[in-house]
């Protein structure tokens, strides 16, 4: 099953490589990855989605804990955490169909960030199912390009 791992690491060169190297070395594929600094500038947070059974997942987290650069690992898989991705869609849009696309985008609270002669670029955020729904609708018009960030996640209520 898919696990969302939130890993707090020291903000130093090479640390991302230590984390991702370890996961792939133990035989797992990282499906999504995002990294960025947190409230403490000496730290970064790596959010990774890996597909692993429970035993394997436990082994990954134990091995990650052994990295000196890793401070804390939180499993955000089951506790209804807030999950977000950001996607940019460049959709085929002849002038007569623009309004339809903008309407769809509005329903999904997307933002038009660029308009071309025959295309629209829409920015959308949300969880995976919402963005999938949007993508399915845009397919009807023809999608020129999709760019998406990795998943970021945060627990709903502060536990500490």
């Amino acid at each position, binding site marked *: 099953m898919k696990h969302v791992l939130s890993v707090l690491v*020291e903000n130093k*060169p*090479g640390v991302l*490589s*230590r984390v991702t*190297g*370890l996961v792939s*070395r133990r035989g797992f594929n990282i499906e999504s990855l995002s990294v960025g600094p947190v409230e403490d500038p000496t730290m970064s947070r790596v959010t990774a989605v890996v597909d692993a059974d429970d*035993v394997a997942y*436990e*082994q990954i987290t*134990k*091995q990650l*804990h*052994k*990295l*000196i*650069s*890793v*401070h*804390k690992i939180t499993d955000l898989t089951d506790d209804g955490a807030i999950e977000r991705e950001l996607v940019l869609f460049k959709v085929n849009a002849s002038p007569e169909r623009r309004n339809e696309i903008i309407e769809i985008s509005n329903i999904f609270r997307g933002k038009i960030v660029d308009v071309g002669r025959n295309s629209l670029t829409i920015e959308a955020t949300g969880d995976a199912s919402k963005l999938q729904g949007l993508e399915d609708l845009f397919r009807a018009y023809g999608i020129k390009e999709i760019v998406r960030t990795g998943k970021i996640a945060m627990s709903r209520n502060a536990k500490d």
Partner: protein
Amino acid sequence: MTEKISSANDAFKSPAKRTAGSVGAPRGLGSRTEKQGQRMLGAEAVVASLEAEGVDTVFGYPGGQAIKIYDALYDSHQLNHVLARHEQGAVHMADGYARSTGKPGVAIVTSGPGATNTVTGIATAYMDSVPMVVITGQVPRAVIGTDSFQESDIVGITMPVVKHSFLLQSTDELTTTFREAFHIATTGRPGPVLIDIPSDLAGSEMVFEYPDEVNIPSYKPTYRGNAKQIRAACRLIEEAERPVLYVGGGCVISDASEEVVRLANLMRIPVVTTLMGKGAFPKSDPLNLGPVGMHGAKYSNLAMTEADLIIAAGARFSDRVTGKLDRFAPNAKVIHIDIDPAEIGKIREAQVPIVGDLKGVLQGLISQLEKDDAHPNTQTWLAEIDQWRDRFPIYHPGLKDAEDEIVPERVMMELSRQLDPASSIVVTEVGQHQMWAHQFIDREKPRTFLSSGGLGTMGFGFPAAVGAAIANPGAQVVCIAGDGSFQMNSQEMATAAINGVPVKVLIMDNRCLGMVHQWQKLFYDERYSQTLLEPNPDFVKLADAYGWEGKRIMHPDEVEGAIAEMLASEKPYLLDVAISREQNVYPMVAPGSALDDIMGAIDVAVGAVRTDMPASAVPQTSPCATIDAQFGGRWEAQPGDTGERMSAEEFQAEKEGAR
């Protein structure tokens, strides 16, 4: 070799007692060195840091980007630098130094090829949890990433095989980096730590301020075992009727031999040892069942399989021990004690996991068992094991071996007989000879049997023996090698000769890569692809070329005298022992087989013969197949025996006729 080294020897004789507060603290003066507060170059601070950590010996090889560090080393009175002949040799020497003393080994090399040559040595230390600090020179910061001369990304290359690594970014971080490196290398589950030092930093001025404390918030290994878990473990031990104490390298690292002996004898629990755990439990104790696993004795493997409780003490259920996992100890509950939480449940689920330092956990177990007034419950179990032990001995003098051939098992037993099992140090290379040594060399004390267990590095043993001999002057250090392994780092003969290290090398010379040859014989239809080394160099002449003593023996009668002569020599000595290449290591659990599916164990119930020989171990074409099977394929081994062979039927008929 001067006083510096004899202080290393004292440490070996009485290993420093660790207390919770002292774990990971500098072994040397730390901030109290006279260099504290002085202005110096980065390179001088590297040397001063090593001195502050109490390092007495470093192994290494200079080069362009390490030249400033070597220049600073020239002035050090404390550091004895041993110049290897190859960087891999230097790292293995540091490893042998560390394994034989428990102190961190230190190696210094240059950038680029110097650094990449250390990779195998670092990986070897990583797999066997050896504390080590490797210092690599790096090109100046300004040209990192430009493919400059002798540049390699050694931090990137070694990332999967180090406990931690540092690329030094500023001289401000130099001393804290060294303190952290030594702390990380020696605490928790020990391991190699790499420090990459750009040469411009080595040439920059700085003020030397060595810290005594480290503060690594993300690194806090658990030393104390959970008291509730210890009580739960005691309940299992008290209830168990067929327990086995499975002792691994963690017992050596944690200095827990005494506790293992006390626990085993308190509850009368039989003990099996892994390759890494050899020596942690004395051979002379009747509870010692010896090696377990692929080439373990049949009785040890049966004990593991039939156990109702396995107490894994600093062991990690390696595939060489467990065999086929779903048939490994099917009825056993498991108490798993390890300082590394990632080992627990990795291979085998543990009913009672205990994360902590083995020594303390075992002390906790013993005092709890004593408080409970627990009594051993294992008489029937031990009697059963004794029956197996009598019936399936690991060797039998009645085994029919060719009379004019040297039998490897007997060489090992003779060497073991002539060595002091408590004070001598035996180091092995990797292969058949390693397994024979594991089976037949008796050890009474930890840190007296050094072998590359996890990575299985051919070429490790000889340089490690040199390192161990330098760390323990006066100790008899013998490297048991194969002719293949020895040739992987034989250049270090120069290091031994020049430094006056009287290391002994006994080569079990079968002129082939014996272990692979054995597998090819057993499982690959005797297709000996690229395992024949003939003609080998004349090892005696090689010894002579390096200023060693040397001798070659080919007949069984020479073994006793030759070993005595080797051990008596005050110089480095190479003894080349010619054995047949048809000799296989038995008993053997074929890879992927269950631990009780054992081939080639001796069964005295049917005579002094090896039983359950694999069909393909014997040439199907041979008319003497059944006889060869009885003698472990050894008749085939007689090089002179090319004559006509009798069929099994003919043999049977003749035997009956003779009656």
